[in-house]
């Protein structure tokens, strides 16, 4: 196809340029604004040098939120992957009501995160919600879901797992359904059991899908903020703040545009580097697993 150089631009450029044009202004704007003292009462593009960046280095809330995000995103994505893969395997073959389960398991990802978070807030409501009520019925005490940092993190992760496991489920189920049959027959002839078949055949074959699904989920999970916003407002104290939510507080609610610009850029660079490294590591890890 190398003979068609003249045409390749025709395909790529409309999309690339569109995205570039839409994105370039915000990016330049953010870079420029990060060197300004633009805030709510002084919305001007003045120049204050690197003051915002210096302030950011000393902003322990920001750095704490990044550490927290790594745990939250890593943890939820791992849980989503395990459950998503498990469910995909269970409804992959030979199960009654297969179509019903599949549709049901897809639905949460179709819902609006902010809206569902509001519903979850009522579910975790410590005195009026059903979770504590049901726990009470089986004789357990009230859990301070949204008022203590441990349970609040669990609540957040629950919401994230609920919302996005279907995404994993979809990608992994589609992956499973497109697997060739031959290796399974071979494994069956070899007399491999369920677990061995999974470990030696299914899992290695699913490695590419798995890497893609995990990476894309990590990207999305890194923006985690809607559910924080609605459920805990980052509380108690600042113990459930994520960078996304902290940026929102600084940049939009308090309109510290300049400062949030600096943080955004730092965050963006950090995320791109982290995710690239993670993606590379995952690819290698899965390849090794697949080869063994």
């Amino acid at each position: 196809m190398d003979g068609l150089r003249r045409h390749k631009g025709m395909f790529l450029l409309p999309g690339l340029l569109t995205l570039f044009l839409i994105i370039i202004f915000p990016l330049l704007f953010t870079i420029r604004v990060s060197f300004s003292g633009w805030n709510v009462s002084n919305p001007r593009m003045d120049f204050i040098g690197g003051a915002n960046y210096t302030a950011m280095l000393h902003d322990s809330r920001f750095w704490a939120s990044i550490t927290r995000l790594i745990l939250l995103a890593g943890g939820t994505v791992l849980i989503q992957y395990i459950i998503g893969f498990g469910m995909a395997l269970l409804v992959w073959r030979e199960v009654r009501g297969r179509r019903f389960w599949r549709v049901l398991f897809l639905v949460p990802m179709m819902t609006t995160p902010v809206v569902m978070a509001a519903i979850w807030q009522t579910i975790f409501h410590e005195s009026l919600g059903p979770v504590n009520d049901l726990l009470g019925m089986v004789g357990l005490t009230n859990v301070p879901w949204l008022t203590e940092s441990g349970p609040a993190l669990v609540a957040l992760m629950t919401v994230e797992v609920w919302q996005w496991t279907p995404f994993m489920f979809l990608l992994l189920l589609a992956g499973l359904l497109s697997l060739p049959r031959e290796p399974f027959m071979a494994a069956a002839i070899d007399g491999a059991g369920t677990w061995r078949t999974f470990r030696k055949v299914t899992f290695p074959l699913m490695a590419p899908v798995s890497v893609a699904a995990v990476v894309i989920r990590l990207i999305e999970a890194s923006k985690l903020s809607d559910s924080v916003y609605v459920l805990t407002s980052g509380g108690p104290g600042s113990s459930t703040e994520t960078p996304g939510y902290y940026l929102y507080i600084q940049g939009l609610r308090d309109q510290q545009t300049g400062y949030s610009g600096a943080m955004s850029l730092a965050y963006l660079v950090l995320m791109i580097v982290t995710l690239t490294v993670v993606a590379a590591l995952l690819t290698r890890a899965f390849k090794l697993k697949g080869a063994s």
Partner: protein
Amino acid sequence: MRSRPYTRVVAVAAVAALTATACTAQSEAQHKSKQKAALFKPGSEISYQKYGKSYPATKVKDGPGPCSYESISRKDYSGQTLKIISHAVPVIGEPTQLHAKQFEEITGGKVEVVNVPFGELHQKILTPLQAGQPAYDVMFYPSLWIGDMAPYLAPVPEEYLNTPGMRDVTQSYMDVATWDGKVVQYPVDGDRHYLKVRTDVLKDPKWQAEYKRATGKDLKVPTTWAEYQETAEVFSGKDFDGDGKKNYGSAEVTKRDDLTFSAFISRAAPYVKNPKVKGGVFFDAETMKPLINTPGFVRALEDMVKAKSTWAPGGANFGLGDEIFSFGGGQTLMSYSWDDAFIQAQQPDSKIRNTVQAAPLPGSSEVYNRTTKAWDKKANQAAYFTWGWTSAVAKASSHQEMAFDYLCFFGNEANTALDLTIGRFGVNPYRMSHFDPAFWEKQGWDKDVAEAYVKTLSGMEENPNRVFDLRVPGVNQYMSALANGVAAALAGQESPQRALDGVAGEWAEITDQIGKDKVRSAYRNVVALEDKS
């Protein structure tokens, strides 16, 4: 869905920008009303019933004056569109929509309303104003934002200031609406924090005896925060309403990014507002040194941390709505915040109707004196005029007549009378005529409940020791910093003193960032109101 000719939009934007800078050009760009026949006879009976079953059957008489149904229905606004931003439904958002619908019906104009959650309202209003984008004609927002909004607001014209309804607004709420000597906000709501208690428990001999046993004191409505704490502790964890579920002592707004800062100021007011000391509560109005970490505020925060033990499950993450559900649903003995919870508890279908009582916020047995740096050992009471909802018209609006007519219609005597009775509307007494127990009795309130309510509210108007919100530019930043500090202390991450020291540091930074003189001149206006008495 309409697609606009963009050139026109740009042109309109340019015109708007011009009008914003050159006020002389303003009158030419303004759209005016035409006259038509009235749709109402003077003094007609007004009721919301036709808008649905969720409205009470109450009927009131249309009042006189230019804002009445009768007068407004003479105006013809057909072909004009008014754009309004308001708070989320129902608090203030629902009356905004309801009156918009009525206004459309009687003037033929079109009114578009968007409703926005509290946390988003500030930037959603301010961003277009700052960008010179004529997004909204009318804005409903918390009155304490006046410092940020004032530069973009159209002063209320003389003819609206002279309506009977406006003249009846209490002095405090006119003060709150005034900036640099001009009335720039249109009062539609009067707000203050006060105490709510369950009288069925307080008057129950069994509980009185129990309280006596526990504390050796008589059970009564607490008048100091120390008593409040004592009472709350005794009743927390007991099933005082006999429904088989545990009850708790106190419900407070504690969710960090909700309205926690107001709850905290309520608790601090009697400790920090010394009638003998003038010149500012939050700052020293001369030096602009933050006072937020002075012993009075620290004491209040210590109280609040102590109070945690008396909160219902989840009480440390209560937004205003949770507080209202908790008290209004009968879960807690006491609560303090805006009228909403009280009115909610007094709704016709409420389980605790007429078993609640309003009382002034608790006071203190001593008050800090920042000039002598010592506690003055004397009982102190301070009225905290917490921010309430207000409304304003954008200077850049080209529909100012329609906008002010809408607001004057919104707040006409008939509408206000009906709105006051609907708890979820969040419209609370702000005119002298609202302080009439007879009106509330007509709504089915018991006489003593109505009287205590009116006395509590009007008493605040008479209290000379008053605290107002920090109505300066950047108020959200200050309050956000304060809420962070309070939340950190409540979560046990920091001691109250350390937390407030941190807040003081942030406040100083914020002041520097915004400009000391700008903040000072704004804060002096607030201090003038407080010290006037």
